[in-house]
């Protein structure tokens, strides 16, 4: 392994693997390979594996022991990363930045001293890395936001952020998969849904994949929405 990790108990039935405490794509890539590998190695003993930016939580069916902890350690020393080469999918996601959808854009642009064109150019230029999902079912944590667009979350959250809103919170950007309260600044909306609980898994987009946004008009937004087009990858 490239990075030094710390392996510890997490309560009665879980083991935590911690990478160095920083957000970077190399750590994310290594962590995802380890996740795939351990999923295979412990398929009959694990209930689930959860991931954060720089940690994995192995949640077992029964009580974890020191022997198991040692076993995880020794498995990690044997992992052959060449067996876990997965090319990440790039998802090209259309976003309408019209102020009718970007309900917080006016305020956001004023605070940042930017024009709407600046915002659209910067937000669509970056290729975002998916570090994880959480906060809401299917909510994607996207890293790689242009630092000129960083803005602290609102101190008072919106009670109803509409489904499919694209928003900025702190150093991250994300898409709300369902209507929810939230403190992020809404700058647009995508006509596509990526999260459907009738499917298993409910989303085709995986942690470790990449996302690029492109700007569409209101007309295009409704065309796509009404045709229910699938996402382009």
């Amino acid at each position, binding site marked *: 392994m490239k990075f030094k990790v710390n392996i510890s108990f*997490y309560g009665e039935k879980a083991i935590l693997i911690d990478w160095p405490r920083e957000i970077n794509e190399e750590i994310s890539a290594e962590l995802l390979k380890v996740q795939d590998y351990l999923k295979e190695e412990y398929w009959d003993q694990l209930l689930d594996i*959860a991931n954060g930016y720089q940690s994995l939580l192995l949640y077992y069916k029964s009580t974890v022991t020191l022997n198991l902890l040692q076993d995880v350690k020794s498995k990690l020393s044997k992992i052959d990363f060449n067996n876990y080469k997965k090319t990440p999918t790039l998802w090209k996601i259309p976003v309408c930045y019209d102020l009718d959808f970007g309900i917080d854009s006016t305020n956001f642009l004023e605070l940042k001293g930017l024009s709407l064109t600046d915002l659209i150019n910067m937000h669509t230029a970056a290729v975002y890395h998916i570090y994880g999902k959480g*906060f809401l079912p299917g909510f994607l944590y996207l890293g790689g936001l242009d630092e000129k667009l960083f803005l602290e979350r609102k101190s008072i959250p919106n009670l109803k952020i509409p489904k499919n809103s694209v928003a900025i919170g702190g150093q991250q950007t994300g898409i709300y998969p369902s209507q929810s309260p939230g403190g992020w600044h809404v700058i647009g909306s995508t006509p596509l849904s990526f999260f459907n*609980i009738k499917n298993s898994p*409910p989303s085709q987009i995986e942690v470790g994949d990449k996302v690029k946004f492109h700007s569409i008009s209101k007309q295009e937004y409704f065309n796509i929405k009404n045709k229910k087009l699938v996402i382009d990858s």
Partner: protein
Amino acid sequence: MTPKVSYIEVLHPGIACSIQDAGRVGYLSEGIPMSGFMDFEMAGLANLLLGNNENTSVIEWKLIPPKLKFSAPCQIVITGIDVDIYLNSELKEAFKVITIKENDSLSIRLNKVKGYGYIAIKGGIRTEKILGSRSFYPNITKHSFFKKRMKLPFVPFIENTITKQFSKINYYKKPSGITFVDVFKGPEFELMPISLQSDLCRKLFSINNQSNRMGFLLNEFIEAHKNSIISSPVLPGTVQWTPSGKLIVLMRDAQTVGGYPRILQLTESSISQLAKVPTNGFIQFVLVTNAV
């Protein structure tokens, strides 16, 4: 022949009543909480008394139980502490099989202790299973809580599967006082000052009235701080140390990741013990270590 489906009609939705089973396992990476019975012990008892598998879907209440009407005969067991149960106007016992006739209506009154309670039905409730579970959760299942006139499907009972009427247990509640909650050290235990680490298990904490299925907020302050961590996985039973100095014990509907230091982790059984503690009831943490 497939058995016909009958319904329980919700006459009054109560407060925060839901369908729960053992939960939705395997979707933490999708950001989907596990959910499931707040109190596995109580829900499991109700199911076992009926001869159900202990993980069968049941009705869960907190504070105000629902009023229900049954469209067909069935058998149920109610587990809850300090409750009065009325079938039509007849008083019934908790922790004992109750036989229901067509059009019977059920109401439950809570007395002093307002904890989580359960109504199990023979064969289970048959609301839609989503990602392996019937547990209600916003944006996953159609409903988050009971609504008036909602209909909960069940398979009506078949004569020869009748559970013996004498299935009963005596459940004695501990006299009200302090509930001891077994905990392991969490990953960020050492972020606390040494004095606080040793004080934590000597302090009494009480449950705030803002507590719910996502988490129990504790009333007492320990110490304000400015430590945050990079969003990391959490589980039901994780104790978070918020910047204000208050503690939150994450419960079954907890979000899958969090950014507050995770100072303690409850044992599996103590999560159910904590669920029994009413608002303003007292708890004390007891540190335990992992098996070798």
